[in-house]
């Protein structure tokens, strides 16, 4: 396999790339394309697809060397869905033609992606979604016509492409009648409405699809096989890449300890008890993340990732709530409820009221805490699944 020689060969490739494209004189986009073509985008991607088929742990070496040489990054903040969800889904289920078209501009950040999954009537019960895709005619490669409404769509207003799950057969049970597509967000019939949220920001969007035409060449996987592809995407959504644990006392708990030290006049015995309990829980969560990282590095990944998200949500909510209590009068202030686009920056730099409000989403987004507990109970502990009334009923016959 090219590049199979490991780190030495990898360093040689990095040097060759830097020799060929000096970051100081090459346009950022140009550099990122060359980097993709050199197999240094993601070393674990396949050869010819931006990678070298190597162990993903080698990526850090490449990133460090290129960043030290002043090479541009690929804007991971806005590209989070493209890199985190779209790329792995395309790699696993896409055709060579689809990969040729979408992978490189995705990775370079030239084309951003969003994800048209959730609907007002289908959140935790995602497979119950109602957006329809109907073939326009009988030809096997006929276009699809999509109608429906999606919601909670991050980056819809900036994305060029969307991952879409739609119902192509309402006459079979819900999991079997779904098909997965890529949709051009510039296609006629797509209307994007920003959705204002609890913080005042418009982080998410509603997306209305009215007679949107999707070429059959944009279908990912077989007709009716959309649920399996969706599962692949969701699994990637929940994977957390940890490049080593954050330092003790960093993150939200650090903010609240800071507030404790800065406001001796606000201290009470009760608040100290709450703070110490949360400090312990945050440190335990940090060690648990470190342990999970070590397990993954040792090739023995455990199911602790589900615990991590549950604990993160619980802690973030409790800590940000305590922080407001600690601030007293200042906890009553909130600087900016104007309707605005969110700015991607670390939570620690935001105001405490924002942290309190935004953290309410942590137990809902990316799988609610209730759904995660079901996953732990059923897949980790082996408890029986809840009986389902809708498992064998055609989707069209389900009560709605």
């Amino acid at each position, binding site marked *: 396999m090219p590049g199979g020689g490991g780190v030495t060969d990898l360093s040689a490739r990095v040097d060759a790339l830097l020799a060929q494209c000096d970051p100081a004189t090459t346009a950022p986009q140009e550099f990122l394309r060359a980097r993709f073509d050199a197999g240094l985008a993601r070393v674990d991607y396949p050869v010819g697809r931006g990678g070298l088929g190597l162990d993903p742990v080698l990526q850090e070496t490449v990133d460090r060397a290129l960043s030290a040489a002043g090479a541009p990054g690929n804007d991971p903040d806005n590209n989070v869905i493209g890199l985190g969800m779209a790329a792995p889904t395309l790699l696993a289920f896409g055709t060579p033609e689809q990969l040729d078209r979408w992978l490189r501009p995705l990775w370079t950040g030239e084309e951003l992606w969003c994800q048209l999954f959730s609907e007002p009537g289908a959140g935790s019960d995602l497979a119950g979604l109602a957006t329809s895709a109907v073939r326009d005619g009988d030809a096997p490669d006929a276009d699809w016509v999509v109608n429906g409404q999606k919601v909670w769509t991050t980056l819809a207003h900036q994305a060029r492409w969307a991952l879409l799950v739609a119902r192509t057969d309402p006459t079979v049970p819900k999991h079997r009648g779904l098909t997965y597509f890529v949709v051009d967000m510039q296609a006629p019939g797509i209307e994007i409405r920003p959705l204002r949220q609890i913080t005042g920001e418009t982080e998410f969007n509603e997306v209305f699809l009215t007679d949107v035409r999707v070429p059959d060449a944009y279908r990912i996987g077989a007709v009716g096989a959309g649920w399996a592809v969706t599962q692949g995407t969701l699994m990637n959504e929940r994977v957390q890449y940890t490049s080593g644990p954050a330092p003790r006392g960093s993150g939200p708990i650090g903010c609240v300890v800071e507030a*404790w030290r800065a406001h001796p006049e606000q201290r009470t015995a009760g608040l100290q008890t709450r*703070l110490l309990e949360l400090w312990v829980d945050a440190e335990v969560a940090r060690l648990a993340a470190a342990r999970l990282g*070590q397990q993954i590095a040792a090739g023995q990944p455990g199911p602790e990732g589900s615990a991590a998200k549950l604990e993160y949500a619980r802690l973030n909510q409790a800590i940000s709530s305590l922080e407001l209590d600690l601030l007293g009068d200042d906890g009553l202030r909130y600087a900016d409820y104007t309707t605005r686009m969110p700015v991607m920056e670390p939570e620690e730099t935001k105001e405490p009221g924002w942290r309190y409000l935004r953290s309410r989403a942590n137990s809902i987004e990316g799988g609610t805490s209730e759904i995660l507990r079901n996953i732990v109970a059923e897949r980790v502990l082996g*408890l029986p699944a809840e009986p389902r009334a809708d498992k064998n009923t055609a989707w069209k016959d389900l009560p709605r």
Partner: protein
Amino acid sequence: MSVGDLIYTDTEEQLRASVRDLLADRAPWPAVLARTETAEPVDTDLWRRLAQLGGAGLAVPSTWGGVDASWREAAVVAEELGRAVAPLPFLGHAVATALLLELGDEDLLPAVAAGERTAAVVVRAATAAHENAASVDLRDGRLHGSVPAVLDATTADLLLVRAGDALYAVDAADARVTPAPSLDRTRPIADISFDGAPGTVVASGPAVDEALAKALQIGAVLLAAEQLGLAQRCLEIAVQYLQTRRQFGRLIGEFQALKHRAADVWVRNSGVRAAARYAADCAATDAADLPVAAALAQAAASPAAELAAQECLQLHGGIGFTWELPVHLYLKRAKSSAILLGTADRHRAAIGDLVGIPAVPTEGAAA
């Protein structure tokens, strides 16, 4: 500061398997329960057997009669003992061993490490590492005084007690050891009094206090591992019941209200495992962070073990409240362990001091 190795080594897993086999063979729960109703709740035969396998001196170098492993391995043994609510003086003996090891004692350590002599440190069982350990008086070269509620002292033949600025070794036969009725019958405590008992000086000076604090920290580390084992076993027992018990025409494990509670226990246990492993690694490597790590492990493990035992009982319903299932053994062990070597609250307070989360200013302090 970097985080040490938090996953189990192959050697540790092998040790776990052999201890688990031994306990399954020699201490199944009905036998443990039956023993709690006798005058000798501690299984001294099994303790001797564990000591023969090296279980009494895992962290002691071979030059002093130990097996050259570390507190990491000792913690794995503790996990298994917690799983089985094993009635052994492992914890009290380990604190005494740690104390002798810290003081560099060469006279007593070989017999203690080999388990030929079982030792106990004479302090109140609820003493946390950062608190002052009890001491007795020294008059005319003899020891006088009493200490209540001493851990694992009923079967010890060597007692280590502080008097003045020195640590003394006392033959248990020279002290009055009164077993006290205890909440956890698998781990008896004893009231000890000395009435002119002869003692041998083990060490003196500030080193004694430092060594006592360190030994109690190591005790807290091992106790956290034991609590982890207990919590994990309680969850297994509960899950097994949820998978078999039917009500309303369904397995009760299908009910989301119950499965979410089981999931919460599992999440807590996952966290405790990381904290307990970190503490064990700090003890094994003599890391500077041991005081925080030990207090953290206790602050996390005590409430988690109590939760697991309590949920195990509640998820069983009425049958869980009876003498006929092992659940009560686990609940009693979990509750008494939550007090032993300092409650979670005391350990959290210690953490506040160690990491700079200062307490409430006291009235008038500003003036």
